[in-house]
């Protein structure tokens, strides 16, 4: 029970403390102390009426105390100087209604002046409440590396003057895209299981985003996209082996997540969303139907192509084209793309080549895909396809 409250409250409490103290590191220490105290006291004294208020007030008072005691600390932020000057005890207590500054925090963490991997790590740490160790583990880097990455990012925010604010109107579209991209990146990195399920974490962040920005169609659409994909996770593997979409046991699909996803998609369409995430979510939704409306899917990919100019999107459109116009047309589209470093490009080409009976070229493509794939379920799947292709070649009489 307490664990859950803490997970939910961490981002909220930290965000307000950053606003109050003007520094992420200070706010983190303050939040940590407050949560530790709560873990000690609440089981015995019972939960306070306003747990968020209690945590924020406690954290703040602790931070101010600590700063006062550390006389040699150079106070860098104007906010902090002001805090210490004004008498703290009277102005803030548990009944104070604290503004929710999580939006400010998300935009700070996803500022373009920070490297992308720093944006991702910082978002998970501050809004997600994951520990440095958990984040390091999730991204398969040493603890030291992740720790340094986070520290450097926090120092950059402080030293370069990255504002703790929601961006002004004219910057908001780009900045929102950046924040959504970070969340989606986290979702795609999801390893599913282990100590941290990044996909589940991304969905939590996605839900916070729509709570904080209820009128942003793209935010609703991103949540829809993540939920619709995540709903199928139980069916994606059978005995540790990859199962293709068409072979998945639909009984294992999480209907509740699909419903929530579809509801978010409807919301984004009601908000007149026409952006890339809305389009992607609509495609994901269409894929759930049996039989698939390939025409509509191809149209939406065309639209997405126009919006993003991404060759990966064109690659996916080619798959739809294969269903509508046959593998030859699809191959012509694929051959015009420059995606040599992308393993799915080669595996897609291989499948199309197989449909055209061009087994030897298919095998070359599988081999190229394998060069780009880490050991695991995906690799084993490609090896099976490769073996399958070799077997077909042996059985086919040479003309």
């Amino acid at each position, binding site marked *: 029970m307490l664990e859950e409250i803490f997970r939910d409250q961490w981002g909220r409490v930290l965000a307000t403390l950053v606003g109050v103290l003007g520094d992420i590191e200070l706010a983190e220490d303050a939040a940590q102390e407050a949560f530790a105290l709560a873990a000690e006291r609440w089981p015995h004294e019972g939960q306070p009426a306003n747990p968020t208020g209690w945590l924020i007030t406690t954290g703040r008072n602790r931070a101010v105390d600590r700063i006062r005691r550390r006389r040699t600390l150079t106070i860098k932020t104007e906010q902090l100087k002001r805090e210490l000057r004004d008498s703290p005890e009277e102005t803030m207590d548990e009944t104070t209604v604290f503004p929710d500054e999580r939006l400010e925090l998300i935009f700070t963490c996803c*500022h373009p*002046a920070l490297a992308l991997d720093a944006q991702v790590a910082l978002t998970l740490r501050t809004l997600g409440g994951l520990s440095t160790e958990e984040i390091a583990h999730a991204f398969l880097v040493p603890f030291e590396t992740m720790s340094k990455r986070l520290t450097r990012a926090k120092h950059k925010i402080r*030293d*370069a*003057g*990255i*504002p703790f*604010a929601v*961006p*002004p109107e004219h*910057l908001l579209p780009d900045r929102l895209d950046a924040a959504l991209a970070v969340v989606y990146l986290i979702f795609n990195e999801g390893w599913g299981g282990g100590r941290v399920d990044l996909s589940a974490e991304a969905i939590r962040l996605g839900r916070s985003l729509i709570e904080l920005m209820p009128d942003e169609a793209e935010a609703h659409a991103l949540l829809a996209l993540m939920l619709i994909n995540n709903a199928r996770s139980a069916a994606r593997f059978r005995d540790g082996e990859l199962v293709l979409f068409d072979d998945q046991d639909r009984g294992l699909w999480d209907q509740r997540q699909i419903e929530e996803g579809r509801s978010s998609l409807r919301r984004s369409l009601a908000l007149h969303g026409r952006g890339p995430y809305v389009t992607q979510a609509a495609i994901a939704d269409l894929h759930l139907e049996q039989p698939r409306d390939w025409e509509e899917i191809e149209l939406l990919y065309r639209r997405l192509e126009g919006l993003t100019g991404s060759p990966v999107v064109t690659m996916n459109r080619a798959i739809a084209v294969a269903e509508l116009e046959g593998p030859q047309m699809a191959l012509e589209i694929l051959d015009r793309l420059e995606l040599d470093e992308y393993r799915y490009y080669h595996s897609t080409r291989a499948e199309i080549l197989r449909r055209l009976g061009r087994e030897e070229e298919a095998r070359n493509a599988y081999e190229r895909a394998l060069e780009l794939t880490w050991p695991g379920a995906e690799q084993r799947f490609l090896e099976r396809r490769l073996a399958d292709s070799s077997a077909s070649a042996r059985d086919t009489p040479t003309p």
Partner: protein
Amino acid sequence: MRYLLLNYTKAESTEERRSGEMHPGVAAVLERPDVGGWIRLQPAGSATTVRLDSRKVLFTDGPFVDSKEFLAGVILIEAENLDGALALAAELQELDVTAAIEVRPVLEQELGGA
């Protein structure tokens, strides 16, 4: 907050640069109240680099980093936060006169008239 904008010139047309006047778009930006000062430097060919090599002072011809793009000048600005500084740098960059602009927060400064 104070920031220093370090302008790196494009690789080509160094001859034009030496004789050329300042781009009018740039000149207009430099007139603004949030610009505290600026310096245009002579091209990289005119630089001499001073280093220490086994405790001996060494002079070499040319800039510290030998590259096609070199430091052409600096601009000292005042901005509320990084977004303000980046907006100004972006405006200058859009004039397509520099290869890139590095935006660095100032730690401390002392600038006399010279």
